[in-house]
């Protein structure tokens, strides 16, 4: 069974078609790169998969079940979650509290009367590379690389096994890119499934099994990273080669 099956997805904003009859599959345990020029509609695809945007038509099937009618929290509860192009931390909260929000069950009763699992919070924080001394720091004090790690940690805390990573290397230094890449490789080794967007193709290449390219919401190519980049339409639209 595929983790994700997108069929004939269409999203229109008035006269603009942001996603145009897009179909692709994501197998369980696979890591898929989604590439395309700026404005190609990559983030719009993510937003539709997560239910933040309602598609105009088409179906989104997750683990064999059509999820188009589910709310974002319900989709996350089923095991799919995302990071954002620009990290969205809770700036006044500490690293530990940010992770706590991801760990919370979607139940008022459990939130009030349930216990805080500090050991699990620490474990997740350490798994993405935070030191113990970082855990009580407010997110407002973190550098971009740490904010990406925090976003990862909060996403992992939801219990999702399928992660959508949007512009995962944006704004990072070379060292931070290596750190995040190592983290993704580690998670791949632990069976996580990825759909990731990045303009940093050299950094993304070793992290994916397959790639798809889109432009103006339309699928241009689907195959190995090398085959997709060798595609004439992709080279023309994305790399600007005639």
């Amino acid at each position, binding site marked *: 069974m595929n983790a994700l099956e997108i069929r004939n997805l269409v999203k229109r904003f008035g006269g603009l078609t942001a996603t145009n009859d897009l179909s692709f599959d994501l197998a369980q345990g696979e890591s898929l790169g989604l590439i395309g020029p700026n404005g190609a509609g990559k983030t719009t695809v993510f937003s539709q998969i997560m239910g933040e945007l309602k598609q105009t038509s088409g179906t989104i099937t997750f683990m064999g079940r059509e999820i188009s009618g589910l709310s*974002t*929290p319900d989709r996350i509860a089923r095991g799919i979650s995302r990071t954002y192009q620009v990290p969205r*931390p809770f700036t*006044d*909260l500490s690293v530990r*509290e940010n992770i706590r*929000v991801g760990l919370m069950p979607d139940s*008022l009763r459990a939130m009030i009367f349930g216990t805080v699992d500090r050991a699990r919070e620490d474990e997740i924080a350490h798994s993405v590379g935070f030191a113990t001394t970082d855990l009580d720091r407010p997110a407002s004090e973190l550098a971009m690389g740490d904010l990406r790690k925090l976003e990862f940690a909060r996403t992992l*805390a*939801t219990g999702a096994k399928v992660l959508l990573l949007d512009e995962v290397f944006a704004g990072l230094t070379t060292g931070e890119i290596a750190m995040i890449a190592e983290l993704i490789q580690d998670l791949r080794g632990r069976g996580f499934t990825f759909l990731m967007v990045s303009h940093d193709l050299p950094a993304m290449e070793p992290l994916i099994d397959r790639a798809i390219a889109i432009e103006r919401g339309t699928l241009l190519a689907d195959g190995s990273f090398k085959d997709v980049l060798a595609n004439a339409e992709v080279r023309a639209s994305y790399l600007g080669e005639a």
Partner: protein
Amino acid sequence: MPGLAQTLFITASGAGMNLRPHHFILWALFIAGMLLMPELVGRGTLRTMVFACYLAIFAISWDILSGRTGYISFGHPFLVGIGAYTTAILTRRYGFPVEASIPIAVLVTMFGGLIVLLPALRIKGSYFALVTLAVMELMYQLVPVVRPDLTGGTRGISRLPALTRGAENGYYLAVCLMLAVALFAWLLMRTRLGTALWAIGQNEESVRGSGLSTTRLKSFAFLVSAAIAGLGGAFYAHYLGTITPRAFFDINVLFQIIVAVLIGGAGTILGPIIGAFFMVFLLEWLRPFLPGQERFFVYGAIALLIYMYQPKGIMAIIESGITRLRGART
């Protein structure tokens, strides 16, 4: 009793409130200090403190919704007013005992707020604020003209049954109510729910993206906020003995609530209490020098100065002072 205290401590710690012994000590000192006030101050000051206590209750109520989630409510006087009018109508027009009318007033406030203001929680920012303001203004206009036989019209309802007699008893009732509300809110905000509400104020999309239903969280915050506003409004009405539309559904009531929270410190429990006491006493101290409305200019200027100096309010000033003291010692 030690057994009970120990059980409470373990339960609260286990529920993620992370309570420490010094929390119990500080609360005990605070409660003892407030309860000893009648021995230390005169009756006039006690009466001023009663108003400060009720304003603190309204400010805590506002802060639970607006200070935490960032949904700025301009309609809180509407909630306070529903509580006050419900108990007033029930006791004066239908002969209900106060013991029954106040719980009913709380439920009516929650229900009324739910119908009128809850749909507004789906809209954000200034739109939410404007809708809540419109609701309050609507009530101000409607109450005097719709069923004046019940509401008393513009003259309101007078001779409400009193809950206590004398300044001291009035003070004890108000301060106990304020302390109960403050303790309840403090404990609630120390749970994971409090963290989630605070997170909504920082980035609602991220909370939803963490798998939490923000609509449910905001609704809960709203209901708790409405219940406290209704409770405070009902007790306040019986303390005053008379209620009028202008005393509740008025923009000045709204400003007093919001300014108390902002200068005290939003997102804290002590902040709104400190802000309410600071404001009420400041206005009283200014009264001999500026008996007219001009004292509101002075108080507004002082509030603005505090806000400009420390936007997180007096609580942040106190906290930074404590941090400096600790630093100086080490």
